[in-house]
């Protein structure tokens, strides 16, 4: 019992494996950094890595195993919502701390649930006036058919109308769609100023390939990042697309420079990182700082200390909001550069506080 | 007329361009035995299908005890008391002989004969536990007759019941049917003339979907026309 046991529930196999790999590496990096610097309160960090298989069943099973068999002090990880829900259903019952790194639709409110990624309003509210001003006044939304894009669209609609814009169409495609032809046909007839895609994961690859082949000229906002662009997309197809993220590799600050260089040193010079990975990295560091401050690994003690600490993350300084356990993240719009992998910062909106009317802890 | 069990009137059926049956009449009285013979492709099996209601005739009507049964689901027809032995022996290959007979009994509204008696009747007592799929061809035929008996039919239709049997077995089958004759009506289709001769009953001869002749078998056997198209001469 001389280590701090951190349980990681990661989609190592299954459809989210590519994001899972980067996320896992970021946790490994954070753990290595902590261990090199005397661990957490003198105790080394030990990672317990489990593959949740991107299924409900698997995520539940693994969360139970981590808590009951490995007796971990905290659980971190998971990417898509079903994994998060399934893990949360176990951690909530066991009153075990759970740090979730991915940007998501919001709506979770649990004392032991800590989100280190942004919810829709954090990304969208500051961005829409900028879109209306710089890209255009009408938007067509095409998205995967599930909760995050639906909530995002709600947030976009509200903020965009306030800024004088208008959503002129929104279509949601089921997962596994292999042909997006009809959507492009719609774009051609509706002629929006901007296309906002929230087709995610593997379908995003299909969608983007086809988007390019249809030769559509409008600016595209798409939830892509450096990892995805490099590992999944044909060279260059992402070039020129915009994306809101709390973190970009292009951020010019010393913390980020160091973060990227140690990441690449550890996992390969050509490797990319993304917002999800960075949020996971931040999560483990936030946990370490809070535990250190609390002088205890008890879930409640760590939670109590969490809002009072601040971490100098690659995206900038961040901290956790005590009222909802969500993180005050930065918000940037990135624009993909010509190689279609990296991004330049198109606009920096600073730190945005999460506003959650549904949650008052 | 009350003892008329099955009455087919002016039955005709077409398959696409082929007039398979045309203007056929048949009356089967209660506890009567009759045979249908005719060349290959004459329409005998098709006629049986019409009589059992599995095929709806394109013209004419079939009444079983006064009611039209065309197009009724198969199991309803069976429950009315029509049992049938198919041309290709169709037993349940993955069930034992005994279970085959049981399944047949369970389908009947009011089975009477116990399984043991049925086994005895078709001489399969010592193979009761054998899987029906493992029986030789002739044994399957007998089993199928046993299954038809199990449902306590009022009318039993047999399509080539003795195909593949030895001459002795063929005669034994005929004897069995003659014994059962007092219990229900039987219509048999058969090419084996010794079998038909042994039954020696009213016989209908079909040829190209039409009635060629009908009457008692000894009249039919000597009929020139029937000899020409069917029996051959020697």
């Amino acid at each position, binding site marked *: 019992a001389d280590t701090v046991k951190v349980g990681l529930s990661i989609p190592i196999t299954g459809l989210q*494996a590519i994001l899972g790999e980067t996320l896992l590496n970021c946790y490994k990096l954070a753990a290595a950094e902590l261990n090199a610097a005397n661990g957490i309160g003198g105790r080394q960090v030990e990672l317990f890595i489990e593959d949740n298989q991107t299924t409900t069943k698997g995520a539940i099973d693994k969360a139970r195993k981590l808590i009951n068999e490995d007796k971990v002090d905290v659980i971190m990880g998971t990417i898509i919502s079903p994994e998060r829900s399934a893990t949360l259903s176990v951690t909530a019952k066991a009153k075990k701390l759970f740090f979730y790194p991915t940007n998501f639709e919001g709506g979770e409110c649990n004392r032991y649930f800590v989100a280190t990624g942004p919810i829709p309003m954090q990304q969208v509210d500051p961005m829409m006036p900028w879109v209306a001003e710089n890209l255009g006044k009408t938007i067509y939304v095409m998205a995967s*058919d599930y909760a995050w894009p639906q909530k995002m669209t709600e947030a976009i609609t509200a903020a965009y109308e306030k800024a004088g814009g208008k959503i002129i169409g929104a279509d*949601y495609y089921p997962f596994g769609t*292999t*042909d997006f*032809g009809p959507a492009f046909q719609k774009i051609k007839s509706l002629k929006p100023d901007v296309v906002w895609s929230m087709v995610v994961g593997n379908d995003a690859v299909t969608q983007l390939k*086809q988007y390019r*082949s249809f030769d559509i000229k409008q600016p595209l906002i798409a939830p892509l990042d450096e990892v995805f662009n490099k590992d999944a997309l044909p060279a260059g197809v992402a070039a020129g697309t915009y994306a809101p993220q709390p973190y970009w590799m292009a951020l010019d600050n010393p913390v980020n420079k160091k973060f990227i260089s140690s990441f690449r040193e550890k996992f390969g010079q050509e490797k990319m990182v993304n917002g999800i990975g960075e949020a996971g990295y931040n999560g483990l560091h936030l946990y370490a700082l809070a535990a250190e401050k609390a002088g205890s690994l008890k879930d409640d003690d760590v939670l109590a200390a969490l809002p009072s600490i601040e971490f100098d993350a690659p995206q900038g300084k961040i901290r956790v909001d005590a009222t909802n356990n969500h993180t005050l993240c930065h918000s940037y719009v990135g624009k993909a550069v010509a190689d279609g992998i990296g991004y330049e910062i198109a606009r920096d909106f600073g730190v945005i506080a999460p506003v959650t009317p549904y949650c008052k802890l | 007329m009350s003892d008329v069990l099955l009455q087919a009137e002016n039955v005709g059926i077409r398959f696409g361009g082929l007039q398979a049956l045309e203007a056929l009449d048949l009356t089967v009285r209660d506890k009567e035995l009759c045979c249908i013979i005719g060349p290959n492709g004459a329409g005998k099996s098709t006629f049986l299908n019409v009589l059992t209601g599995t095929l709806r005739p394109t013209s004419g009507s079939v009444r079983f005890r006064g009611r039209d049964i065309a197009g009724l689901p198969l199991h309803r027809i069976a429950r009315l008391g029509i049992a049938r032995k198919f041309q290709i022996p169709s037993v349940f290959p993955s069930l034992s002989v005994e279970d085959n007979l049981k399944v047949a009994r369970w389908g009947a509204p009011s089975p009477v004969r116990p399984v043991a008696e049925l086994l005895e009747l078709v001489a399969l007592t010592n193979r009761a536990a054998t899987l029906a799929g493992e029986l030789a061809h002739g044994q399957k035929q007998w089993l199928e007759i046993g299954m038809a008996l199990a449902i306590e039919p009022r009318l039993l239709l047999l399509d080539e019941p003795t195909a593949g049997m030895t001459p002795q077995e063929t005669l034994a089958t005929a004897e069995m049917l003659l014994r059962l004759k007092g219990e229900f009506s039987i219509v048999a289709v058969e090419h084996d003339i010794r079998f038909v001769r042994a039954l020696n009953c009213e016989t209908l001869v079909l040829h190209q979907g039409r009635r060629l002749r009908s009457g008692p078998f000894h009249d039919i056997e000597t009929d020139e026309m029937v000899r020409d198209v069917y029996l051959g001469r020697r």
Partner: protein
Amino acid sequence: MDFVVTTLLNALTLISILMLVGLGLAISFGLMNVTNLAHGEFVTVGAFAVYFVQSMGGSFWLGLAAAPIAGAVVGCILEFAIIRHLYSRPVSTVLATWGVSLILQQGLELTFGLGAKPVTPPIEGTLDLVFTVYPAYRLILIAIAALTLLGVVLLISRTSFGLDIRTVIQNREMAEGVGINTRRTYAIAFTFGAAIAGLAGGLVAPLAIVLPQMGVNYLANAFFVVIVGGVGSIGGLVAGSVFVGGLTSVLNYQISPSLAQAIVLLAAIVAVRLRPNGLFNGASR
């Protein structure tokens, strides 16, 4: 006009993809009655072949030529090692092919690494078709699909090998009895089905995601197309593809795509209910 033509072309694209994937399945599942859950992986293998050739500096066309070969090789090995021992055991086939599909996915992942693989189309841009402009590559895909279909139809109906296949499928024991090497015929037919699936994979590679797990996206639809159209006939396969693909494309424009997918599947169920032997076969059972 633009709208109609584009919708038509969109539908044709989808139909072509469905048909190509279904074609291989129509042979293994429809004709040979082998429920091959690894069929989707043949598509994957074909797509990876294109990726591999491109990443080695070869052209797309070279990759496209390699795709059916890769599918055939994998199919042939699978037939030889597993399927041929299980023709009389359909349940075991389901289990074993599911296992093989897991192995193939993981094998690809171990060989080529995690994540989606980039494949670049041979030609970018659109073609002006008077009524509308349409991505050139999609037109090529439609053309190749049509040619493949024609080839398969000719092969099955005109060649003695086609006759052999049909014979073996109808009555294996008897086919053996008239001197046909049924093992070989089956092996070739299965391999051929795998090759077509591989070709389909190669063709969709520039359009859709290329990833070890991509096969699932095609598997269910392919089974469906085969069933809707009628098991065991190429004509039925075309009918099934047109039905599923056409309806999806048209509905997609009118209503939410998820709802459209559900409606298409429901419509297909109704179609199967009304024509249990498939759309194509004249008589219903």
